[in-house]
């Protein structure tokens, strides 16, 4: 398939690899409006002081992430990109989201862990590949561990 006029989902975690992913996603999508930036948050805990005192809610977290996303897209000249915040297991959420919006491609950076770290942390990219129904482009880090 030719990568033109496609809808691209770019999961980001605000690490340095996210910049590369956004640049790649943008160049493939062509138009920032066809790029969906997705950040998946762990569900809200029940025991931290912020949550117990009602100061931290999923709304405050979403607002904070959106603010950071806006800064990031502005930096890349892609302010019109779609910004999405989801909650739950990142691999599953990303794949589900791509399916729902009928995305053509997911562009995901990989941390490239090996050995024990990979065993413990798993890989979001792996889960996305397993569950996604569209194509997935995994960006390999040059200095992968």
């Amino acid at each position, binding site marked *: 398939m030719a990568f033109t006029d496609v809808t691209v989902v770019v999961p980001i975690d605000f690490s340095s690899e996210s910049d590369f992913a956004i640049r790649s996603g943008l160049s493939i999508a062509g138009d920032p409006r066809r790029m969906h930036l997705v950040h998946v948050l762990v569900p809200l805990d029940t*025991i931290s*002081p912020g949550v117990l005192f009602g100061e931290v809610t999923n709304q405050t977290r979403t607002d904070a992430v959106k603010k950071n996303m806006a800064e990031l897209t502005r930096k890349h000249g892609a302010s019109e990109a779609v910004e999405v915040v989801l909650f739950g297991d990142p691999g599953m959420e990303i794949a589900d989201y791509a399916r729902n919006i009928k995305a053509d491609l997911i562009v995901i950076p990989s941390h490239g862990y090996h050995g024990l770290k990979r065993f413990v942390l798993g890989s979001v990219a792996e889960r996305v590949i397993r569950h996604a129904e569209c194509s997935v482009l995994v960006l390999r880090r040059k200095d992968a561990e």
Partner: protein
Amino acid sequence: MSQLIRAHRCRGAALVAVLAMLARVDFAAAQQVSGNRAGLVTVIAQTDSGGLFDRINEALKPVDGIFGKVNDYVESVVFFPIPMGSGQSVPAGVLWLVAAAVFLTFRMGFINLRGFAHAVRVTAGRYDVASAAGEVTHFQALTAALSATVGLGNIAGVAVAVGIGGPGATFWMIVAGFLGMSSKFTECTLGQMYRKVRPDGRIMGGAMYYLTDGLRDIGLGPLGRVLGILFAVLCVGGSFAGGNAFQVNQSMEAVGQTLGFVREYPWIYGLAMSVLTGIVIIGGIRRIASTAERIVPLMCGIYVLACFVILLKNWARIPDAASAILDGAFSFEAGWGAFLGVLVQGFKRAAFSNEAGVGSAAIAHSAARTSYPVREGFVSLLEPFVDTVVVCTMTALVIVITGAWDYRNPEMSAELKAAYTLKPDGSAASVQGAILTSVAMDQQVPYFRYVLAIATALFAYSTMISWSYYGERCWAFLFGDRHSMSYKVIFLAFTFLGSVISAPQVMNFGDLMIFGMAIPNVLGLFLLSGKVRLALTDYLSRLHSGELDREVAQQGP
């Protein structure tokens, strides 16, 4: 998403199954003795002799022995005896904390005394700035940290200190509380300095971060990494031990003073506590935890008030008690060894209760909303003050004034004596602290054991919830944010174990983990004290010039 919902449903179903199982047992037992008007619990006890409940009791007995072996091994490291002359020694972990508290008190120029007034003003909200990064106000951060520190250590631990060390231990406990304020100031300032703000505005901070990043800043990266990981591992252990099993075990003793079945089938209490904690930390029912957090300050107030009433009732004995405390603290008649023994008891139980130098509270204080790390350091120094200088001292005074410490006195009531286990030479080997406090207070204020049973159960519960947060943060530091479920399951297993293992073993285990945490943390505090000192000097010069007050006036709350 659907998977998550499924997972939640499964957990919910498991919880319901456990409850249903319990309910069935109760129901069956009640049916067998229909007409018996005694409580349901007595019914179970009567019908179950030789039955399932007793078999469970039997099956759980060897657990204690296994625990003891593990304890002995860790003890040889954490409490390695440091020789102090004349064949006497002090456990390494205790000496390490005392050295840190004394050093930091001098290094920060007696911040524990001269910073007090400013600490109160900051906590009262005078310097709250809503736009600063962080999750909670200064006051909320202090409340959260206090709910982890004010627990059974203040009620049971203190009774153990005075029971074994005598009235003199009270003096050293208060001294430890004052000195601990400096350690707490230093560690919580560092917690703020090296906290991380996540993209969603959440804060990650604590000793594991300042050890890792702080030591890297001063060119000790590899050491910082090792200490950070060591701290996190021990903090996870501490959250299972002092912050969990110990709380269950000791509150169970106090509750057992009022409910016979808890004494007979302790594991039922452990199971109930596991279920109640599980509902919050796994089931996600926030309301229970926030309700408990709100009731605890009230309970704390009732407790201190009751102690105060007891002191007033016995006001004529106060001078005698005061001289017993001072004589005991500086008594060299029984030799250098006895003096050290009293000192160690006082410091040990104070440190266990207020956690100054242990590094745990930095996790909670790092969440406070402020742009000046030192400012939260000020707030945190109130913690050992409230915990030790006020609450622990109250317990100690009650034990001293009521004579509950004087197990050699032939006129002591049998009920009080029962709290002591004596060595062949007639000295105390161990004390059941919660029972001692409960009986001593009940003899002064009728029916107070019932109030204390409720209070201790609540203290234990809120301390456990708070410590599960500390432990979970350290687990997340080690294994990432998304693996907290395995932690929570192990935590609940220890909640249950706390009811099965004997009191001295649980207390030992708690001590070892808490003092263990102090090993990497205090080393970090020594090495990073220069940075804190610089920040403090800068902050104080801004404060005295009026700059900070002007800043708040401009920014508003």
